[in-house]
């Protein structure tokens, strides 16, 4: 049809390019430059400021140590094995916390009854920092992996639940009305309107809680462990090896980056229709 073709042509050409828009290539270049500047300034500080190297090892030492422990184990394991353990712990704890959090949040945001029952308990649990659960977690789940999943899962749970509540409550009354007008039942109202319209907010929660779960890994690995990034930091602290502490920090950061990238890719697929999906 002639009219729709005309409209289509107009749509595919962006009318105005805003000034702060930058291309992907530029973006990569800027990222590289800013990263390089930080590393160079860091190394310069170590070289020229007296004593700085003692309290803050330079990038050269850190990279050298990292390369060394790719082959030589620290404690029981080499670098990538530590990374793998941390990744696995965050991943499992995060998934458990996220699933329970999203379900709880959607229930609370959708049903007044569920909210009345759950919210008193939730409001009590909510302000407790994950690290405060360490003694309890050991008592309940022992010294093994389960207690670590619990500590990581807890922080994820709270954030995911809060965002899912907000998402479900923000569902447009007009869209609900439109769905009812088209013949949707109460159950379909949940599965076809409330759930999909909460998805952007749920993903916001998943992204934020991913950072939170990376930050609780240290607490989790303080519960007797012999592996992982958190353990590397503790080991470095106990032996006065600041370079190892920095290696631990980098491992946590890389873990977070890997998971956030994966999550972002899933998000983009899931909500291409929304502003967050762009």
């Amino acid at each position, binding site marked *: *049809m002639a*009219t*729709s073709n005309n*409209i*289509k042509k*107009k*749509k595919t050409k962006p009318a105005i390019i805003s000034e702060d828009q930058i291309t992907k290539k530029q973006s990569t270049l800027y990222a590289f430059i800013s990263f390089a500047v930080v590393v160079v300034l860091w190394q310069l500080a170590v070289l020229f400021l007296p004593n700085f190297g003692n309290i803050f090892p330079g990038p050269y030492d850190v990279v050298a140590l990292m390369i060394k422990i790719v082959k030589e184990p620290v404690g029981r394991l080499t670098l990538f094995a530590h990374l793998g353990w941390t990744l696995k712990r965050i991943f499992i704890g995060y998934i458990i916390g996220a699933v329970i959090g999203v379900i709880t949040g959607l229930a609370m945001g959708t049903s007044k009854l569920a909210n009345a029952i759950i919210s008193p308990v939730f409001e009590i649990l909510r302000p407790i920092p994950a690290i405060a659960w360490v003694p309890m977690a050991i008592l309940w789940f022992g010294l093994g992996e389960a207690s670590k999943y619990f500590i990581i899962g807890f922080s994820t749970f709270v954030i995911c639940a809060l965002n899912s509540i907000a998402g479900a409550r923000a569902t*447009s009354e*007009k*869209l609900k*009305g*439109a*769905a*009812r*007008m*088209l*013949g*949707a*039942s109460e159950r*379909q109202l949940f599965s*076809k*309107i409330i759930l*999909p*319209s909460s*998805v952007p907010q749920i993903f916001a929660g998943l992204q934020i809680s991913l950072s939170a779960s990376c930050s609780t890994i240290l607490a989790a690995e303080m519960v007797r462990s012999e592996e992982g990034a958190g353990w590397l930091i503790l080991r470095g602290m106990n032996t006065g090896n600041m370079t190892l502490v920095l290696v631990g920090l980098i491992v946590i950061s890389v873990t977070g980056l890997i998971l956030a990238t994966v999550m972002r890719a899933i998000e983009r697929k899931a*909500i*291409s*229709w*929304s502003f967050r999906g762009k």
Partner: protein
Amino acid sequence: MNNEVVIKCENISKTFPTADGTAFDVIADFSIEVNKNEFVVLIGPGQCGKTTLINIIAGLEEATSGIVTVGGELVTEPDPKIGVVYQETNLFPWLTVMGNVEFGPKAQGESKASRQERAQKYIDLVGLTGFENQHPNKLSGGMQQRVGIARVYTNEPLVLLLDEPFGHLDAQTRYLMEEELEKIWRQERRTVLFVTNNLEEAIFLADRIVLMTNCPSTVKQEYIIDLPRPRDITSREFLKIREEISKNLDLTS
């Protein structure tokens, strides 16, 4: 003309409580009948009760007093036999054009082949062939309204309520959409109640125009428009009717 009454509003009133405790009358003693396959346009001042009235007929809001029946049955809640096209389109942004258009029959459990065949028919009818897999945010305002119209038609309602569907569109697109809607309606006759505050649009589309008063809204006068379709908005007869009605129209509010 078929005289079977499909939409019947009897003495509808709607009062909203205001912040200072007094009552604000939006609709007062409003009665109207719409016959089968008739195109009735409600026209009245902006901001006064027209959307509320549509919501009451659609079962989305309750009247303070009065009765609404559609197809002889009392309206108490939203019902697929009462289709609504909204001014703000209210498309589901996470669904494609096809997903939106087939939403109604899908929710009601119709088989995929059957519902998609009908959805495709109306997508073609509103001129969106080729856009089935696009999301609404990729479409222009006029195209979004077309999706809204196709969505309602596919659900095969007994009546169509259109609440200022072209109110947000620019003038050119608005003319185009009026022509398209009129064409679609001539091909697929339905009982239509169309709300607008644009007199030209009303005369172009209506079999009958119901003129509403300022707040609280009630029926001021009715006009039968028996010009041949499609109408020419610059013809002498058209302009004559327009002049006659506009004298009686209080659009200032």
